[in-house]
């Protein structure tokens, strides 16, 4: 399994189940790129802008704005993306209005399968290829916080769906170009975010399979988020269990003091952590065994609330962990057969 240093690629998608911290990790990864001095664009798609909250910046909307040194963010809505895209083609605002803001046309656009998704991907594609006055790429890194899985799979399938439905027209050409970008391991990586828990892990394994086999999109890393660091070693865990059982037995036997034993709550809290740690380790093993992609654990940070400080810590963590993955390239041939045409 070859895993080139992620920082060598330019276009990144973050995907995962709702509630696993996908946006947080996309933002942290973007920050880690910006810290390396790379001009980075973080794109949220059609959500209530969480990024503004994370960076304490003003409302991030469809205008690109700087939220930290070298780090720019934008929130892409289908309507805004459609407008930009149509204007690029039609060149004339008046014509755009007449065509696209026509009530009948807009109700018609609603029923074209995947058009919304396509124009949002199209906008990302545009930024990947955008150049400055000197003809150099305008962005070193483009990071897309893709919709939660389920919908996310559909989202990524759109270009291939469209190329299978139509064989001509701008939509077809656009889809074809986007597909080429998505399947290019030199430029693109999709990172799958998950929690070390049953449902997110199963969904992630399924997503990894679909991404690899049906879409041919190169997987960068699987990020297991919010992993508790084990605090207690094996001997301590065993003793704590024994102590807890002894206290329980005494309480069951009617010992009034057992309930109020000063260590009682501490033992409960420790058992809770140990149970979570043991469970998470099982799911991490499952991911390592079955995801067929490098895995990076992201620790759970105990903080007052999700804030810039947390993003900062995760960014530091990623910039240490990700390059470490870039092991000497093994034979990549066994994986090249997976690219879908």
């Amino acid at each position, binding site marked *: 399994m070859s895993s080139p240093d992620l920082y060598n690629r330019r276009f990144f998608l973050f995907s995962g189940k709702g509630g696993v911290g996908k946006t947080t990790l996309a933002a942290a990864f973007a920050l880690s790129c910006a810290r390396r001095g790379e001009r980075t664009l973080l794109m949220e798609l059609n959500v209530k802008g969480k990024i503004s909250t994370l960076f304490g910046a003003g409302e991030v909307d469809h205008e690109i704005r700087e939220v930290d040194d070298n780090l720019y963010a934008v929130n892409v809505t289908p309507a805004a993306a459609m407008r930009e895209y149509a204007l690029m083609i039609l060149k004339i605002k008046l014509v755009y209005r007449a065509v696209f803001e026509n009530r009948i046309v807009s*109700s018609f656009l609603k029923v074209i*399968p995947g058009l919304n998704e396509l124009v949002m991907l199209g906008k990302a594609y545009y930024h990947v290829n955008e150049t400055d006055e000197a003809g150099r790429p305008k962005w070193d890194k483009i990071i897309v916080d893709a919709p939660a899985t389920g919908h996310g799979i559909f989202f990524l399938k759109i270009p291939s769906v469209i190329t299978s439905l139509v064989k001509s027209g701008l939509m*077809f050409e656009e889809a074809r170009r986007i597909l080429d970008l998505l399947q290019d391991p030199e430029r693109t990586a999709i990172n799958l975010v998950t929690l070390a828990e049953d449902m997110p892990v199963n969904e992630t394994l399924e997503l990894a399979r679909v991404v690899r086999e049906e879409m041919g999109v190169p997987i960068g890393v699987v990020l297991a988020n919010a992993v508790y660091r084990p605090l207690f070693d094996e001997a301590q865990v065993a003793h704590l269990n024994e102590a807890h059982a002894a206290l329980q037995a005494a309480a069951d036997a009617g010992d009034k003091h057992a309930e109020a034993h000063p260590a009682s709550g501490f033992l409960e809290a420790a058992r809770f952590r140990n149970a979570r740690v043991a469970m998470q380790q099982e799911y991490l093993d499952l991911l390592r065994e079955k995801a067929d992609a490098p895995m990076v654990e992201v620790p759970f940070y105990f903080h007052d609330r999700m804030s810039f400080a947390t993003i900062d810590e995760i960014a530091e963590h990623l910039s240490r962990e990700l390059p470490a993955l870039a092991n000497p390239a093994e034979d990549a041939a066994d994986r090249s057969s997976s690219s879908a045409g």
Partner: protein
Amino acid sequence: MARTDDEAQASRHFERVISERQVVICVGSGGVGKTTSSAVIGLNAALSGRRVLVMTIDPARRLANSLGIEALGSEMQQIPLERFKELGLEPKGELWAMMLDMKDSFDRLVQRHAPDAKTRDAILDNRFYHYFSTSLAGTQEYAASERLHELVESGEFDLIVLDTPPTTHALDFLEAPERLVDAVSSRALQWLYKPGVLSGRSGMGIVSLGTNYVMRTLGKFTGGELLSDLGVFLKTFSSLFEGFEERARGVIDLLKSPATGFVVVTAPDSLTVEEALYFYEKLDRDALHVDAFIVNRVHPRWVSEEALALPPAELATALEAPPLPALDEALDASALAALLLENASQFELRASQDASSIALMGDRLPKTMPILQVPYFNRDIHSLAGLNQARTALFATSG
């Protein structure tokens, strides 16, 4: 966890309200335990003697396994409740479950409402149909609400619990019927397959630009054949829409009737709580009955403030006090005490975060709204005992 009087009262209130509903719809963001909550609500009603169906959109394999079935399918299956006797319970009713396969639901819709066999096959075989039925915003929700309506009409169940898709907009489910009707509204359609529009002969004029120009521009965008094929498809499909609006109205009436209650499910973190409150506001504005909030995975407060302030040396001494076993040679009491304190204060932080977002919820909701907390259990919730533990947390019953 010791229950306060308020919590016990909220549970009793919730149980009473649910016992009067025929439909309970769980809404909430993804990953908050909505499916498990739906199952637990259904389970409780079934144990107390009602004939219950739980409809989910989640394959929820482990939940299915913990209930003693292999997997949920789009066919209804009965859940064997005898196993709950192991926990000392007396199941009196029936519990059924099914997974709502969206595509399957939409196919049923076509089969039920196509005017004739020819139209039916023309739709089901159309190359657009698959994408249309699985991907158009609202089609899933529409199919789910149609299926719900159908099952309520059949009168087979005393209670149907529905676990909705994790939408970013709570009301997609309610607005879907109207939106769908609107998106493919007959007016736009008629216009689309008006003779001559696509072949470039002038149709009805649009201010300052001819229709055929508009269509040609659009055609440049989508590719000509897509536009005409889509037109053909929509034309065929529109034959289904006879009565679409009427049925949509029926669904909306059902959702607004006193027979239906909504339960908002959330996790205790502040972002998710904000989303849940936003759902509530929208539901409330539409005059829908919200019966309760369920907060899953609430971190218990294991250690009191005073205990957390214990000097480590004192906790180290306590670790060797009877009835606790003596420490092994290899273990150091003060090192262990330090770790126990660190761990307890970390989880105290989580518990206090949870408590403050729940307090915030209480402030922003009517005083009478039950807010039911399910603690974060040490054990796997996907087990008979785990489900029952969640049940006793939600409902006042302990038997």
